[in-house]
């Protein structure tokens, strides 16, 4: 089965990449975009036997750096 791990920057952490993307969107002439935050989507193909606890441990130990990032795990 497929699992998606969504990794995003915590609130309050400056996101230079998001800011640059925001700037580029405005440069293309689009209006009304108030803020852009860039994150990361990691897709895992896992056996049915892989537990939620194991997925959480993977996210904590490697996929997200909890100093700056939050994560959300979604089984698809």
């Amino acid at each position, binding site marked *: 089965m497929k699992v998606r791990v969504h990794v995003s920057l915590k609130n309050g*952490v*400056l996101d*230079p*990449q998001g800011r*640059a993307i925001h700037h580029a969107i405005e440069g293309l002439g689009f209006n009304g975009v108030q803020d852009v935050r860039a994150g990361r989507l990691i897709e895992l193909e896992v056996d049915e036997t892989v537990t939620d606890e194991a997925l959480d441990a993977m996210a904590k130990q*490697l*996929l997200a*750096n909890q*100093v*700056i990032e939050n994560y959300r795990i979604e089984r698809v």
Partner: protein
Amino acid sequence: MGGFRAAVITFPGSNCDRDMAVAIEQVCGGEVHRVWHGDAGLPDGLDLIALPGGFSYGDYLRSGAMAARSPVMRAVVEAAGRGVAVLGVCNGFQVLTEAGLLPGALMRNAGIRFVCRSVALTVENTQSMFTRGYAPGQTISIPVAHHDGNYYADEATLDRLEGEGRVAFRYAESVNGSARDIAGVLNDQGNVLGMMPHPERMIEAAQGGTDGRVLFEGIVRGLVGA
């Protein structure tokens, strides 16, 4: 007892490992072992472990993230716990934060661009084994070359680092957006230093200055004096 013993770890994508090894050889003397990241252990009796600059694993996932989980890092964490000096420069600093040996994280430079030039630093701590050769508040010049040098930690952590004198170096000019202009931090025992600037690139006059040499001299001096 033998002379000074150091190890320089090479990860796939490290590119300052040779410079680091040469700097240690020339300034500290003794033996410098080159250790591959996949090795499970480190040589015995080390005085210094250096994690060099570069782009380990192509900065995949996050800078330093993959390297921090490589086999040799377990031995580095264990040695750091025993009080062995650990110096992480640039990517090495990123690896140390990812490995949990130093607090905080290094994010994309606030100005987005890669910064490659000599910068002015203020020496904030002159008590550590790495910084004892400098004068308090001394301004030194050391090159930086990084894309992800923007130091981040939450306010409580920053206050604690400052209160405990664990900010080793601060940028004396605008470089990358780092919180409180932090360029280098120490762990709570003072035996682990991570810094974005490259002291190994400033060890002889032909390189434009010797402000980095003082750091390596300090490490040796502490051992002789101990």
